[in-house]
Structure formats: C-alpha cells, structure tokens
C-alpha cells in the first residue's frame, strides 16, 4: 500500500490554529495562501528551511571559536588573578583528581555542542543532496538533537552559580569572562538552527523518485 502524504492528498493545515484547508498547487506558485480562520500564512513545508538552518549553523560555528579561546571564568584572590577557559578548567579538574566532574564538563561543554553542529550539518547536507538512505535513523538523530540541545546550558549554569556563590568581597571574587557569553550564544544559535530545519524535507525525496 503506497504511503499517502498530506501534500499528495491536497491538504494543508494551519500551523497556528490547525484548521485544514484544501491545497491548490497551481495557486501557490504566484500567490500566498492564508488561513481563512486566523489569517496566518499557509505552507506545506517551512519556507527557506535549509537556508535558514545554514545561517544559524554558521553563526554558531563562528562563535564557537571565542567560546573556547576566551576565558569563561576569572578568579581574583590574594594568590593572584587566574583566568580559566573551558579547556583549562577541565584540565584543572582532571589534574586535581576530579575526574567525574571533568568528564561531565567535557561532555556538556565540548562534546555535545560539537556533535550538535556536526549532526545538523549532516542532516542539511543530506537533504540538499536528495539522499534517501537511512531516513528513519536520520529522523531519530534529529529528535535526539532537539531533545539534548538545551542541556548544553549546563556549563553556563555552573559558571553563573559559581559567580553568585563565591563573592567574598576583596578576598575572593569570581566573575564571568567573555568566553561565557560566546558559549551561551553558541547554545542558543544551535537551538534556533535545529528549529529551522524541517525533517519532512527528507521524506519528500522519496516522492520525487516515484
């Protein structure tokens, strides 16, 4: 039995009020379709989905460099001023014997953001190339990225918590560095990129074969 999509059935749902309308392919070429109930624009697929995803991915990748090169935490104490980047913080935890903490911060701050960027890039590239392989697995990857993405804010959470707690005036003060801002921006831009991607574009490639 051949799978039937809403696009093939000539149906389109409003993304806001979910009102179903009849879809006239001939009209959408030169006109915008709007919902007769709430007035929002109607589209079968997110407009410019791949372009927008690429834009946010590029921005996230660009800001990933200062996020790792600039210090994220500055500690002022009578023993001097110490600036720590994400990697130097992980190295410090590892050297002091806090392997579990070092591993956790490494996964949350280094591994997950990189994997998110890599996976999203893979999905966008494969969709643009009209690939039809592993459609189910790729869709599962997309859902995983969507679910795990927001947890990258763990490192930012730790930094802000430390900044708020350690504040012995004129003895020891911890402040956030410019690296923390860049890292937060990377996480937010990654979230936006995954939201811009429309996974249904991957399955449309099947219909084009028929």
């Amino acid at each position, binding site marked *: 039995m051949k799978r*039937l999509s809403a696009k093939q059935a*000539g149906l389109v749902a409003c993304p806001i009020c979910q009102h179903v*309308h009849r879809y006239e392919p001939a009209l959408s070429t030169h006109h*915008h379709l*709007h919902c007769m109930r709430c007035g929002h624009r109607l589209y079968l697929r997110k407009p410019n989905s791949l*372009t927008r995803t690429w*834009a946010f991915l590029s921005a996230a990748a660009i800001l990933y460099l200062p996020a790792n*090169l600039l210090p994220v935490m500055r500690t002022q104490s009578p023993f001097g001023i110490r600036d720590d980047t994400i990697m130097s913080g992980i190295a410090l935890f590892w050297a002091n014997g806090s392997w579990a903490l070092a591993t956790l911060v490494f996964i949350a701050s280094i591994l997950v953001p990189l994997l998110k960027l890599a996976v999203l890039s893979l999905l966008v590239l494969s969709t643009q190339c009209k690939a039809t392989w592993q459609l189910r697995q790729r869709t599962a990857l997309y859902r995983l990225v969507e679910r795990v993405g927001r947890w990258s804010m763990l490192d930012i959470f730790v930094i802000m918590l430390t900044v708020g707690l350690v504040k012995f005036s004129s003895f020891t003060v911890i402040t956030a560095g410019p690296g923390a801002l860049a890292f937060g921006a990377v996480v937010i831009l990654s979230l936006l990129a995954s939201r811009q991607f429309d996974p249904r574009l991957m399955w449309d490639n099947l219909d084009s074969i028929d």
Partner: protein
Amino acid sequence: MTQPETHQSDSAQQTLTAPLPAPVVEPRGRWVPSLVWLIPLLAALIGIALAGQAILASGPTIVISFKTAEGLEPNITKVKYKDVDIGEVKNIKLSEDLSQVLVAVELTRNAASFAVTDTRFWVVRPRIAASGVSGLNTLLSGSYIGVDAGQTNQVCKEFTGLETPPAITGDQKGQQFTLHSDTLGSLDIGSPVYYRRVPVGRVVASQLDKDGSGVTLSIFIHAPYDQYVRTNTRFWHASGINLNLNANGFNLNTQSLVAVLIGGIAFQTPPGQTPNQAAPNNSHFQLAADEADAMRGTSAQPIRIVFNFAQSLRGLSVGAPVDFRGITLGQVESIGVDYNPKTQTLRMPVTAILYPDRLSQSFAQAFNPKGQEQKAQLLTNLSKRGLRAQLRTGNLLTGQLYVALDMFPKAAPVKFDPTRQPFELPTLPNTLDQLQLQVTELVRKLDKIPFDEIGLHLNSTLKRTNHLLQQLETQLAPQARDLLLSAQKTFDAANATLQQGSPLQADIHQALTALTRTLQSLNALADYIERHPEALIHGKPRDNQ
C-alpha cells in the same frame, strides 16, 4: 494494479475536498533577499571584534634572561610597574648554552613604551637582608617581575634581567655621587647615608678599583638633601664602633645602631668654612676612615719635621699627636734609630707631619709659598727664641707619650741648619729626665761613702759590746741580785714602820693635830690684828669688869 491505486486516491480526495474550505488567496509580493543571513554576518562581526580586541590588547613580546626561573610560571606570573599589570609571562625556556633562563613576556598595548634599551627588569620575591625585609606580599600572590622604565626611545626586544632589585629607580629624585675609599669596611649596597644623623640616601653600588688600590662606591642622595653636598663636603665611614686609646685617654664614638649593624656613611661640610656651590651630579669625593680624619684640613701642604731625641721612645707610637701648648698641630709619622758616624753617637729620629693651617693665618701663609728661605728663616727665628720639642707623658696608666712643642727661653742655643730637608727642630729632655739625672748624681755620691770600713768598725764594736755584756752577766748580775734582796728587806722594814697602828703613825698623827691647832690660833691672831692694828703696840686691853 495501477488502476485501483489511482481510483483509491481520487476517491479519498473527492471525499475530503467536498466539505473543506478554500484558503484565502493573495498575490505574492516582490522577492526580497532573506534577512536570516544577517545572523551569521552578525556572528562573524562579533567574532572578528573579539579577535581584534584580543589582538589589539596585546603589545610586543620581549625576552628577558635570568639566571633562574624561581617563582616564575607561564601564563600566571605578571609584570608590574607601580603595582599595575603591564604584561604576563608566556613562555620559559633555557638558553642554548644552558647557562640562563629565557622568559618570554607579552606586554600590553599601553606598556609598549617599556620595550626600550635602558629598561630594567627584576624578579620581586621575598628577600631577607641586613638592610631589611622586602617583597613579603609575594608570599601569597606569588612572585612577579618588577620594571624600571627607561628613558630612551630605542626599541629593544631582548633584556638581561637584574638578579637583585636596583637600589634606585628612574623615578626617584636626587643625585648620585662617587666616593673613593681605601677599604669597603662594613658597607654594603643599601647602607644608609646620613647628614646630621638623618638618613638621606644610601649606597647603590660598590666595586674594587681596577688597580686594586682602593674601592669605589656610588651613593644616591635624595632630593632635597642633595643640595647639602657641596664641593668642599667631607664624607667618612660612620659604621662600626670607633674605639681609640691614645694620649688623650679613652674614646668611644658611634653612630646609630643601624649604622653599627649594617654600616653607613656620614657627610658634612667642615664647620667654619663658607659653603661652596652645590656639587654637580656624579662628583667624586674621598671617603675618610672617621670624622676626625675627614675634618682634618688637607688644603695646605703638610710640613715634615724631624726631631732627634736622646732618650728612650717607649710609649711613643705612630699617630701620636704633636702638640703646642695643648693645640694639636700634627702627628708622628715614623720612629727610627740613627747612627752618626761623625760624632759616633746613636740618635732616635722622629719624623712628624705638621699642618700649618692649624696655626694662625699668617703662619699658614708663611708656609704656603714654596719659598724655602722663608720657611728656614721662620724656623731659625723660632729656634733662637727657644722653640724646642720635648717628649711628655700623656697617660700615666698606659705610658703613652706625645711630642710637645713649647718655648724655652733659657735653653742652650743650638745651631740650626737651614739647608737640611726635612727641617730638624732641636729637642730638650723633659723634667722626668732631669729628675733622673739628679737621682743618678745622688747615687754616685752615695757610692763614695766607705760603707766597707764602716762595716768593719761596726763589727769590732759589736765584738766589744758582746764581751762587755758577758762581764755584766757573770759579775754584775749576782751583785745586783744581792742588792735587790737588801732593798727588799729595807722596804719591808719601812712598811712595818709606817703601817697603821704603829707608834710612829700615832706620834705623827698627834703632831699634825697640834700643828692644826697652832695654825688655827695663828689664824685667830691674824684676824684680831687685822681688826685692831694698835694691839701690836698697846697690847690686848683687859676685859671691861
């Protein structure tokens, strides 16, 4: 097969299309570029700004060589100037010959002007020295690199770091002077310099002269005290304890306790002299051993005088004062023994140095010109009027001697040789020597007495006396004993006669009683005659009856 599928699709569409409304149709507007690309553009701009900020904030990288990297850590050790961070240590490695440590330092942009040739770098770490404790704040915060900014404009990227902090930095106001001394004494870099016991500077460098004949020190005196250093200022060692035992007695001089412990230098313009103009920077001065040595006038050329003494010089030492009625004119320079083959006698020449400016101005003026005749004439005149040198005891306890000049009008005239160089002043033995001569003469007279003959006579006299005593013992002693026995009997008889109750005693008693009665009668007669003098002629009248 194809027919049923198409049929099924058409039927579904027809079934759903009937009740569904049609969407509102609007014409599509003109195409505009997507604004979503502004996001990566903005991210790129932010990234470039951050990178640019990081690049612009970093200044030049310099390399400083030290002997050791103790206390230095990459990416942690700072470079500070007036406690402001101007750089950071980036890399530490050994030089190729393994003799030094090369420290790569990245300066900030604002501190790029520190990379000039005469800038100095050193490591600030805790130091404990005789002059104090410094750098203790680095115990907690860690060592850092200190900087003294240079003044030139020539850019330099390689520096040799100082192993000890410099004594003075470029921003300290004052002047630097050079002192020459025979010995370093107890001075060290950092030793204080005093003016009227107020610390006004310190020693900043010291080194041995190239020829090894002395030591050269550099001192730094802070403004405004450097104006007190004039061209005629004197410097002396103020360190240690000055213990002096000389003809004048026992002297103990010392500066403050700090100077005693770590040494010091004191300076002052000689009192009584008008201050000259202020000394320019890097002037050269002599460093004297003590204040007395520094204040001793050296403007006039000293005069060397020879005295020839004929007596023992025990107690006289080099440096003993040459005194004129209590005023010290100079000091003894050398002591020796001389043999005169002409007269075949031994003499004791003493060479002394006299300072003419200790005397009056005219005396100094007379000695200042190089005229030999004038000096000879002056000394000849003084000798004729009785100027003589004499050894005197300055301290009976220690036997210290000094040379005393004085006028002796009755001294025997002495021929003065004006051509002799150095001048020779005539000498006189002192009063103790004369007393010694008199005692010698007395001893000589005592030697003439014939004690031997007297001894012989005395011996014979003693023999006769012995003989006489023997006779007395054998002949007179028994007779004396008999005589004494007779005397004893006589005394016993006298005692019996005179004892109480004897007849003689009673008779004497009666006689005395009668005599007393007689005297009483006479006393009554005398009274009657006194009252009736005519009784001597007419006699006592009869009683009226």
